[in-house]
């Protein structure tokens, strides 16, 4: 039976480990099977299967009414998705690259995020797509988009770091009654080090809850997405100096799980925020404010951050590597903070 299915949705059925891309494809497939209100919109997601082939074969199973190839008009089809959501459907919008969510910025922040508030009821809608650098994509195919939306009341923002989380969080996002921005780091899509055997049951991971990726006593590293893996590498490096870092994977950025951050900080007394996104106006700031408001006296050192440089993402490999935060940067900052 599963021989009829697109390969990228069969890993769990076959008892084989899944990549992040396969986990996402499985979540979409299973939710479309489970709930006929779920449908997909995006550029070339049908016959072509999407730029990253997440939806390869979906149109054969679900037909062109549920796998809709749209014109190149991110604002238009995101607005249309909102209309369909008002009428009880549960659209999942794919941005070919999340960088192209910008033309939908107006409708997302002004119309969609305010819908419930304005009395138009719940608006279940997911906008998902690939983000992140390290792929030599240049300034328009490498961005992280969380901070464009983090300031907007009414939205949720999810950014998974593992196959298990990607599948469970995407299912929760689709079932959520609020609009959710779902970021998928393209560096994790097919990363060999990031394959996992997923639960066979229909599991979902609640939005708004962080995960302790590594327990430690000396220092808290708060991070998400690809940087969880970089931070774990750094933690292994720090462990050689007997510095025990705790790594918190936020999973959901909005709402922010401040309880988890505060609890970890109250244990370690030191806080380092690591994000791939650029520095000024990054999420580290909000985390710093929350910690000041709730746990200032537990701080045994300054809140610090390791981030990308304040510039557009460079095209050349040399520049991009310099631009992005590295494991060595996290180790340097971790050591500094530990000795503070």
């Amino acid at each position, binding site marked *: 039976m599963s021989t009829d299915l697109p390969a990228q949705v069969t890993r769990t059925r076959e008892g084989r480990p899944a990549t992040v891309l396969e986990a996402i494809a499985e979540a979409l497939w299973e939710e479309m099977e489970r709930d006929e209100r779920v449908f997909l919109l995006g550029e070339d997601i049908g016959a072509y299967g999407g730029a990253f082939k997440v939806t390869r074969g979906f149109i054969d199973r679900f037909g062109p009414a549920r796998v*809709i190839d*749209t014109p190149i008009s991110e604002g238009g089809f995101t607005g*249309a998705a*909102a*209309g369909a959501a*008002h009428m009880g459907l549960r659209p999942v919008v794919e941005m070919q690259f999340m960088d192209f969510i910008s033309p939908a910025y107006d*409708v997302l922040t002004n119309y969609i995020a305010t819908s419930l*508030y*304005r*009395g138009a009821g719940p608006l279940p809608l997911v906008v998902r797509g690939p983000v992140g650098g390290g792929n030599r994509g240049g300034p328009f195919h490498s961005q992280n988009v969380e901070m464009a939306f983090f300031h907007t009341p009414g939205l949720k923002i999810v950014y998974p770091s593992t196959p298990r989380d990607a599948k469970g969080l995407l299912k929760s996002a689709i079932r959520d009654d609020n609009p959710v921005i779902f970021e998928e780091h393209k560096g994790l899509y097919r990363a060999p080090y990031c394959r996992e055997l997923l639960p066979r049951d229909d599991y979902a991971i609640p939005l708004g809850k962080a995960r302790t990726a590594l327990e430690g006593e000396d220092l808290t590293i708060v991070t998400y997405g690809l940087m969880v893996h970089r931070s774990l590498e750094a933690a292994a490096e720090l462990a050689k100096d007997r510095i025990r870092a705790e790594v918190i994977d936020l999973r959901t950025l909005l709402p922010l799980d401040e309880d988890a951050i505060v609890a970890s900080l109250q244990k370690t007394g030191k806080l380092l925020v690591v994000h791939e996104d650029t520095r000024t106006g990054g999420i580290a700031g909000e985390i710093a404010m929350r910690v000041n408001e709730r746990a200032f006296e537990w701080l045994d050192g300054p809140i610090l951050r390791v981030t990308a440089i304040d510039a557009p993402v460079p095209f050349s490999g040399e520049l991009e590597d310099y631009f992005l935060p590295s494991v060595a940067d996290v180790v340097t900052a971790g050591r500094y903070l530990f000795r503070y």
Partner: protein
Amino acid sequence: MSGDAVEDLLYQGFQGRLLEESLRRMPPSRRPRAATSIDVRAIVIARAMRQTVDGRGDLCCPGPMSPGPALAFGATPLEFLRHVTRKGTSPASARAGGTSWTDLRRGLIGWDGARGTMTQVLAGAALAFAQRGQDRAALVFERRSAIETGAWHEGMNFAAAQRAPVIVVLAPPPRRGRRDRAEIEGVARGYGVGLLWFGGEPLIDVFESVAGARRRAVAGEGPSLIALAPRTDVDLQASLDAFTEWALAEGDRTGGDLESIERAAAAGVDHALGRIGKEPDPDPEEALAAVRTDTPSIRPWTRMKSPRPDGLAGTAPSGASGVH
């Protein structure tokens, strides 16, 4: 056109006219910022759509032309006044008010933001109708200026590409110095959608044309664009009067019937005007909570948890409910 529809149109036409007059008389401080002029053609267009009140009928965005189409979709004058005067008995009216008035069960969806957005949204709603094979269509009133926005083009293009059962009205006037008829004709041709152009024709003709466009849309023949040519207030009044005369001449209505409709309409408006002043104001804690469906109740700015390790705040300043 059924007798019911004629009756409704007369009633709603009279109410619309009275509401508009009463808004013009309001003191500037209470007068709603949103445009509220009534073009009776808009009521007729809205009434020509099929409406039921169980969330399974057509969907209408009255746009900056409300209240006309809202009345046609079953709204009462009191509800209308609540929204434009930001009263709290409907939380949405206090929060967004005016033309953002939305009641999906009744098929009303409002908006007071960027031009063009609602064409996108209603195109998507129409898509949902078509996907389920329902006998439902969507109707959106935009101002003529919407055609200048990229948002509108993306919505219209999407609707056309999907053959979504949506009817898009461009209401006058065109803005200073804009090309007019040629631009709209070019667009209709470009997107391959039907175009209806309404000037001063009898309201009954408007009604029948819209009903036809709706039938075609629901049959999968794609969206229609309706352009309303500018008319003076006097002309609009005259067209309602002409419709009244037509109703008298064509049907079995008497002058007495008409007077009774007009009296009932006026009573509804009078009642609403009397009541609206006494309506309560909204409660902030409740009204501001609905930002996400699972939002915890609002936590105002100074009411954060204590930043002290012992859980105790600094001495709370007297009289301040502030920090605790």
